[in-house]
């Protein structure tokens, strides 16, 4: 009884401590990301540059045109993936759920590989039209189309069933995978390499102008999902129970589907596939502050953003002057960390 009482207390305490702690860590990571890199910038210079002094030297360009945009992208993408993961896990009532279930990943891969493999031939018009944006736009369109297809298959007669999303998702993902497989088969070695790296994710090479559309989509969708926190709590009681409490369950599921597709689609479009973040962040936070989405989802925003910022810092500095794909880093940091927390929580349960 005492131990369980402590659990309630511990959760409340963790909530009080965690948020200021995460914000403080974010500030630390901001300065670390600004100073560390191929060219080191002194802490004092960073401070001066951040408040707007000395604006026309090389360090200023590096900071404002490369490091800060990249940090913002890392934070926003990490936040968007994590909050989407939390929403998906709630809607599927399954801690293993991820946005791949609704076709986000397979659709984005299809769009990206179409642009990479057919960009010089069949789709040369598309590539000419969109220029630098061709790959992100292709990935986003692929994602949107596949998600829309799964959505249409799953909704009928005024309902929107989670089981049919799951089944339609499996079928459509398999079809899309076979098309992707065929395109991979006919691709050249260079295209294959491009595709492989895209699949491992990267935050590099994105300017403000390239990433702003994605940032806007991710921020709007994430904020929209934050507003669904209480309905998602009630949804965990069961669909009819949530309905009895006045939640329009079908609308809720559709909203989560749409916002997740948008947030994750926009992330994948600009950064490629970054696995693990959307799955691990809600999990870890749930262990510390409990499953209440009113705390969990804001926590996901900050912790997810922080985690991906740190992962990107590692990815771009560990093998200077080159850099690692960020997907490798998120799995390499996230995997063992998650295992450690899992083992610890089993020990406390025993």
């Amino acid at each position, binding site marked *: 009884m005492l131990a369980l009482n402590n*659990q*309630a207390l511990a959760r409340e305490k963790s909530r009080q401590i965690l948020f200021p702690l995460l914000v403080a860590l974010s500030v630390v990571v901001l300065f670390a990301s600004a100073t560390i890199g191929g060219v080191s910038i002194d802490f004092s210079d960073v401070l001066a540059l951040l408040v707007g002094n000395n604006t026309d030297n090389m360090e200023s360009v590096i900071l404002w045109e490369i490091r800060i945009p990249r940090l913002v992208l890392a934070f926003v993408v990490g936040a968007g993936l994590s909050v989407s993961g939390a929403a998906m896990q709630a809607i599927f009532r399954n801690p293993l759920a991820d946005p791949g279930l609704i076709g986000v990943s397979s659709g984005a891969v299809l769009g990206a590989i179409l642009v990479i493999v057919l960009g010089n031939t069949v789709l040369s018009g598309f590539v000419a039209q969109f220029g630098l944006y061709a790959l992100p736009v292709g990935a986003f369109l692929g994602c949107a189309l596949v998600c829309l297809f799964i959505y249409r298959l799953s909704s009928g007669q005024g309902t929107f069933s989670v089981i049919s999303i799951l089944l339609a998702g499996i079928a459509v993902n398999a079809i899309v995978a076979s098309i992707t497989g065929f395109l991979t088969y006919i691709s050249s070695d260079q295209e294959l390499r491009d595709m492989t790296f895209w699949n491992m994710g990267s935050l590099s090479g994105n300017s403000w102008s390239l990433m702003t559309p994605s940032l806007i989509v991710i921020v709007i969708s994430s904020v929209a999902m934050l507003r669904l926190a209480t309905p998602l709590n009630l949804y*965990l009681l069961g669909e009819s129970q949530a*309905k*009895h409490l*006045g939640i*329009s369950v079908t609308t809720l599921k559709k909203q989560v589907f749409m916002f997740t597709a948008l947030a994750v689609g926009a992330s994948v479009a600009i950064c490629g596939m970054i696995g693990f973040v959307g799955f691990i962040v809600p999990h870890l936070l749930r262990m510390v502050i*409990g499953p209440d989405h009113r705390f969990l989802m804001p926590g996901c925003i900050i912790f997810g953003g922080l985690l991906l910022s740190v992962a990107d810092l590692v990815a771009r500095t560990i093998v200077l002057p080159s850099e690692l794909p960020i997907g490798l880093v998120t799995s390499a940091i996230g995997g063992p960390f998650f295992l450690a927390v899992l083992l610890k929580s089993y020990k406390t349960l025993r």
Partner: protein
Amino acid sequence: MIELKNASIQFGRYTALNNCNIQVNRGEVVTLLGPNGAGKSTALKALSGDIALSEGCAQINGTDVSSYSDKELASLRAVMTQSYELMFDFLVKEVVEMASFVHAEAFSKKQLIDFSEQAMTMTDVYELKDKNFNSLSGGQKQRVQLARVINQILPILDDEHAPRPYLFIDEPTSSLDLYHQYEVMRIATKLAEKGVGVIAVLHDLALAASFSDRLYLLSQGNIVASGSSEEVLKQQQVFETYGVRAHLQHQGGFYPSIQIAKGN
């Protein structure tokens, strides 16, 4: 009043409910009885707006259930279903406070916490409020879910001008010990005294006879008897419905009991 009028429900070829008429007034406890698969829960779901009728109509306060929004229904009635599972480890008080969502606009946070504590005290789970819901026993979970449902209607009762709500309870005592079985039904009666219309599905005939103002006996989707416990629980009637010879016994100072005959 809540009402099923000439209600039928077909699932494919299977008739779950056949031309049923059920009425529940404010301030009374009405119980649906019958063997497994008789259509009790189906009738309850039709009344609460969970499943659509094939024929007839289901009304709350004279208006068709389907013409209310989910939000409107939530302030007219609370429903306790037979499912007590909950994904992820919420605390007991968090589960009970989920019902506060319905009244978040009309009451202050402090008032809502008072209501949920009152509800937990009523169903005897206040001591468990900081425990992990998923660590509780089946019976404790059931009482926590009942507290959540009661927490949905307490704020409505608090407002003198609001129409009295209805409470739907589907086998609320199935996992409970003897004391809590009677305690839960006493709570239902107390709520009825405050004007709540209670409709319950029960399997325990003695419990139903002890606390219900009226009973409906269902068999294979039909209502075979309705009225007071003496009228409904006649030996022949119970035998035809359940295939068991049972005798309803009253004794001063005790709740009614049911004696079951040995053999057939």
